[in-house]
């Protein structure tokens, strides 16, 4: 009963909505197709470009971590379609509550690349203004953000505003009590929230089979929340599924749950070594379902991706990679005394005393060692 090692990590199962197959051919899906009938080849090329750029950002950030420029990086390799497809179903009025892995979503939302990297460099806890981009900052506590998204959506109802919130979560998070409680609240108050679960099959070393003995999407109906399983490596299907959920939210239909079935092709983070717990066969299987390759094949099949178009896509990715690298490498370290900033909105006598004492302490070093307050004393 407790034999976790017997649980398989493999998955794709029937009942998963798809519009573009892994080989780039179209798939008929009567439920999803009408939702993306307006998406022409030009728009699909834009989605393709977004995915290529996200992947380039991921490669660059991984390299920067290896070079010691970032403290840590959570790769999103393989999940580009889930991130780009879901984001493009939203408007700027919708509020996003991401996990730590939605750095592609953050980029597409407009967040500054250096800002995004500041968190992973260890320079700041937050790389953008959540209110400016209607996007919360990376949530590290697994599943906590699903409650925030639900509460935000309850607020939208109270304010009579037609918008929605979306909570990104993973298969691992689906085990957390917070996630279940958020679904209870979302259903009770018919909150316009989308639970967007990227089932990437691995929670660090634990296969999805340990978190769920049946498809994760199957849980939501038990809470009274309609759900859908979608091929998370099919950007068009993800866009359609998220539009389905968004339409429900905007029309007073309440919460929806999407399970985007995808795969974490990289490590959990750069601190992780996945060769300790998963085999190459699985990796090869999922590599053959690559989210970018299928759109490339699809667009090529329609004659929309010639050399010039490919060059344009590559140029954008390269530009972003360079911007990321420069922004990261040239990022100044935070000043020592900022360690006391923003703990409270106004003064706090005890902390103010500690700040004063530490300022004197650093000043004493400046006197004895000739260093400045802003400099490092080590």
């Amino acid at each position: 009963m407790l034999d976790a090692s017997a649980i398989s990590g493999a998955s794709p199962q029937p009942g998963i909505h798809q519009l573009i197959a892994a080989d780039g051919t179209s798939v008929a899906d009567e439920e999803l197709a009408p939702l993306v009938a307006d998406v022409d080849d030009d728009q699909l090329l834009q989605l393709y470009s977004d995915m290529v750029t996200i992947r380039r950002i991921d490669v660059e950030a991984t390299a920067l971590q290896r070079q010691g420029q970032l403290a840590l990086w959570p790769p999103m390799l393989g999940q580009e379609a889930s991130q780009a497809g879901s984001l493009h179903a939203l408007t700027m009025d919708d509020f996003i509550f991401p996990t730590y892995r939605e750095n592609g979503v953050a980029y597409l939302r407009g967040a500054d690349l250096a800002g995004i990297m500041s968190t992973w460099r260890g320079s700041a806890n937050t790389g953008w203004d959540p209110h400016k981009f209607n996007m919360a900052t990376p949530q590290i506590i697994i599943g906590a953000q699903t409650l925030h998204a639900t509460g935000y959506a309850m607020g939208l109802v109270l304010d009579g505003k037609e918008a929605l919130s979306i909570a990104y979560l993973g298969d691992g998070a689906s085990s957390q009590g917070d996630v279940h409680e958020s679904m209870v609240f979302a259903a009770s108050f018919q909150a316009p929230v989308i639970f967007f679960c990227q089932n990437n099959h691995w929670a660090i070393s634990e296969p999805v089979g340990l978190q769920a003995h049946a498809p994760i999407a199957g849980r939501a109906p038990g809470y009274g929340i309609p759900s859908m399983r979608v091929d998370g490596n099919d950007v068009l299907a993800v866009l359609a599924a998220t539009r389905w959920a968004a339409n429900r939210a905007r029309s007073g239909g309440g919460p929806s749950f999407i399970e985007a079935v995808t795969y974490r092709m990289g490590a959990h983070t750069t601190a992780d070594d996945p060769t300790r717990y998963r085999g190459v066969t699985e990796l090869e299987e999922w590599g053959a379902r690559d989210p970018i390759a299928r759109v490339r094949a699809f667009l090529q099949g329609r004659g929309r991706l010639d050399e010039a178009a490919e060059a344009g896509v590559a140029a954008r990715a390269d530009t972003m990679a360079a911007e990321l690298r420069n922004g990261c490498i040239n990022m100044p370290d935070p000043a020592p005394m900022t360690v006391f900033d923003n703990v409270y909105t106004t003064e706090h006598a005890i902390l103010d005393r500690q700040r004063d004492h530490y300022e004197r302490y650093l000043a004493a070093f400046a006197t004895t060692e000739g260093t400045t307050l802003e400099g490092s004393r080590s």
Partner: protein
Amino acid sequence: MSRLTLTQAINAGLRKAMEDDPKVVLMGEDIGTLGGVFRVTDGLMKDFGSHRVIDTPLAESAIIGTAVGLAYRGFRPVCEIQFDGFIYPGFDQIVSQVAKLHMRTHGQVRMPLTIRVPFGGGIGSPEHHSESPEAYFVHTSGLRVISVSNPQDAYTMLRQAIACDDPVLFFEPKRRYHTKGEVDLDADLSRAPAMGASRVVSAGTDVTLVTYGPLVSTALDAAKAAADDGISLEVIDLRSLSPLDYGPIEDSVRRTGRLVITHEASETLGLGAEIAAGITERCFNYLEAAPVRVTGFDIPYPPSKLEKHHLPDLDRMLDGVDRVLGRPNSLSGLEG
């Protein structure tokens, strides 16, 4: 004697406890196939089976809560919380259930859980990976709280914690995981120092410097540096945070008259506050100066680029020593 890292010593302690008692089971996230994110449980699933080294779903409340149920059945669960900052979803189960069940049931139900928590900073991690939450648990009656500083204590005290019929929070200083030391793997547990005993780790005469966990080695370095200035520090490793063993601290302060307490956790209501009060009550007439605390600030743990400013280091400890000795220090001129 074997030369082991702190992680290897904990691993050996877990192995010994599982060999000695078939009711010992391990639970946690990524502790099985992966061997834990710090490799503390490396190889244990292979040797003891996945029924005793249990990779759990991602739910800290469930890890602690189901361990309570297992304890009702007579098991001795050893739960791993992956990082200090991840313990809070399990906080309710620890505080409301684990800590209280023995008293609630008139002593009829025992909760021999051991909850292992890698804690503290200094490893350049993102938010929630560098916290020092020990005071919450010291403040909670019904729990015993341990923090080890070296491989031998890690091996011995982990076995003592698992053998203990009370629930034990076992804090492991993650930035010292690779520290090596001699470990006597065959030591008789009944002859080991008591789990609740603090220890003088460096004898001295001028100032008593009390600490635990990751800062013990920093404090020992500070003692060496102070000796170069002709100042003799007596360093005490608390080892047990609940109960506090005041004996060696009292003995020391009666000789030195001066007390400095240092820890990574925030100052307000931290162990330093408790020890300053406890020693003032016990040794008031021996104190030559007010006890001094050298601690992390009262702030959420900062981004890693700033953590060196938050964490007490050798220099800040020595500044505290100067303060308690009335030597020139960073706050000279402020004292009234």
